[in-house]
């Protein structure tokens, strides 16, 4: 892996970046509209977000070649906020999300991403896929067979067109074909225009129209916190994927800060919070993009298309967008995790499934991730808290050998494994194969010793390692008063 300079990250791959940027812009439009509809806002909110985020991140991101825009993961988080308080609160929440993400970047929290277990990450993408899929079901309620047929046609084109050509994104071909079909055959199905309006204007700088009070903060803060976490999670996952498929490194802390700056800019220009997109970034890399220019071109071309073609965009049938979203859900899901479900340890599978179920019940990816982290920590603690006590006689002396980690979760059981009333004079407790980790363990050892001493035995603790000794030295007799 070679590190590249900032200038090089802009102009190192001009031709490839321009071409891939155009492809990505085309693929972004249907998704930006569909994610807006999921969130319950006008399509323009998602389109403006995709424009401003893609352009801003081109300058301030830490992972050249990665595409960020309006995303499903984020849209799913603020459905309630929009329904309860309206667009202006969403814009304010978006700006606050950006501020939180910049703080993440400043405090270099990206490295703690490694604390998120693999099974939680898998659960995260699977839950995201399921939510994107279920968010489309509402479009099928009370619809005619024609709508179902259009969805089928969309999906068939998406999956089969790549056999004819891979130069044009098949989602775009599907959208254009199905829209043309609906217009020329005069099919009466619901279109984007029936749900929201497309304005053929550039975004304007606006300060969200909300009361600047503490109450407003208490409303938007929980949403912003969840958005900041989920946005960074998906962005850093995507950055790793791009690192991997281009074999170049990236600065995850700069990326965290860049995501924050983009969201602040977006909030002020009437866009909704977004983050990096796995699918679009893969499209970008596959189309030959690898530099900052690709993201800039994608954003600018997307806005250009909307300004020029806005009249046609409103005529895109919802069926076509639903088809695209079903494809997004299918490709987001980690099918590998189903194939290997019976191979990975049971505790890992449980964590993955619990993460998914928590998200489905709470509709909140952030809560799912926390539930997953919590559960896997509990599994880890219970696995590591198995302590064995071997008991043997050495002449007239009772010899106990402790094997395992002594800490808050393991000491209670250890206490019960000694025979305090046995008829011997001397007892030796050997800790050579053990480690004392915390104050609970120190107290526990003291308790064992004092229990034997109460029964009139001579106790000797042997074989303590250096770290344990130091901790005991620090804490002994200072904690034993209870």
């Amino acid at each position, binding site marked *: 892996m070679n590190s590249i300079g900032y200038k090089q990250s802009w102009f190192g791959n001009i031709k490839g970046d321009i071409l891939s940027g155009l492809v990505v812009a085309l693929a972004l439009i249907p998704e930006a509209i569909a994610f807006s509809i999921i969130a319950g806002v006008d399509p323009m909110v998602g389109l403006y977000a995709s424009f401003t985020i893609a352009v801003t991140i081109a300058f301030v991101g830490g992972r050249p070649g990665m595409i960020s825009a309006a995303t499903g993961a984020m849209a799913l988080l603020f459905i309630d906020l929009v329904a309860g308080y309206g667009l202006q609160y969403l814009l304010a929440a978006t700006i606050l999300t950006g501020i939180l993400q910049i703080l993440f970047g400043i405090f270099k929290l990206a490295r703690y991403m490694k604390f998120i*277990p693999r099974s939680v990450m898998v659960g995260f993408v699977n839950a995201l896929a399921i939510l994107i899929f279920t968010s489309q079901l509402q479009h099928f309620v009370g619809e005619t067979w024609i709508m179902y047929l259009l969805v089928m046609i969309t999906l068939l084109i998406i999956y089969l067109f790549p056999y004819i050509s891979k130069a044009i994104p098949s989602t775009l071909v599907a959208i254009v074909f199905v829209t043309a079909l609906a217009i020329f055959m005069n099919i009466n199905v619901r279109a984007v225009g029936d749900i929201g309006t497309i304005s053929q204007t550039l975004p304007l700088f606006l300060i969200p129209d909300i009361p600047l009070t503490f109450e407003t903060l208490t409303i938007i803060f929980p949403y912003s916190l969840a958005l900041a976490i989920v946005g960074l999670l998906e962005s850093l996952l995507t950055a790793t994927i791009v690192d991997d498929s281009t074999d170049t490194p990236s600065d995850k802390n700069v990326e965290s800060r860049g995501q924050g700056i983009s969201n602040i800019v977006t909030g002020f220009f009437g866009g909704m919070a977004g983050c990096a997109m796995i699918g679009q970034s893969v499209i970008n890399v596959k189309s030959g993009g690898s530099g900052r220019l690709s993201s800039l071109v994608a954003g600018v071309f997307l806005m250009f298309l909307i300004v020029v073609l806005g009249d046609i965009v409103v005529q895109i049938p919802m069926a076509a967008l639903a088809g695209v979203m079903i494809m997004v859900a299918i490709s987001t899901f980690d099918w*590998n995790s189903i194939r290997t479900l019976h191979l990975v340890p049971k505790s890992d599978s449980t964590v993955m499934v619990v993460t998914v179920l928590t998200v489905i019940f709470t509709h909140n990816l952030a809560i799912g991730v926390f539930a997953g982290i919590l559960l896997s920590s509990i599994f880890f603690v219970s696995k590591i808290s198995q302590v064995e006590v071997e008991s043997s006689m050495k002449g007239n002396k009772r010899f106990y050998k402790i094997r395992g980690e002594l800490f808050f979760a393991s000491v209670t059981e250890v206490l019960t494994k000694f025979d305090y009333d046995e008829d011997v004079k001397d007892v030796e407790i050997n800790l050579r194969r053990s480690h004392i980790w915390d104050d609970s363990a120190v107290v526990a050892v003291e308790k064992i010793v004092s229990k034997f001493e109460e029964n009139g035995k001579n106790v000797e603790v042997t074989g303590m390692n250096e770290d344990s000794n130091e901790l005991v030295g620090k804490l002994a007799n200072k904690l034993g008063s209870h």
Partner: protein
Amino acid sequence: MYNKILLATDGSEHSKRAAENAIHIAKCTEGSKLEIVYVIAADKAKSDVLSNWNSIDVNDSRKERIKVAENMAKESGVSFNIKILHGEPGPTIVEYANKNNFDVVVIGSRGLNGLQEFVLGSVSHKVAKRANCPVLIVK
């Protein structure tokens, strides 16, 4: 007669047998050189990254996959080197083989993902069709 031998590998059973054959061919010609090629596809990056999330380096599992062929080549004593390429496996292998004027390409008949290969038409097929040199597809 085969001086430059390209072995395409993905760590699967078939590619293991392909490696055996490639080494055999290399041994037949004095001074021949074996090049072991592994292709990283952008499509696969997501599942690769996810399945190696907590390991220090995704490349570990890749090295593992190449290792099979690498060890076989080492043991046999033929001269070889390893090349990692990026892109879609089929076209990438073809391009690399044609550009560098290989004398023969050795490849397993099926890769890691049986079903997908069946549906999409396999990598080995594409290589056989488009490479400018003889291609040995090993069953």
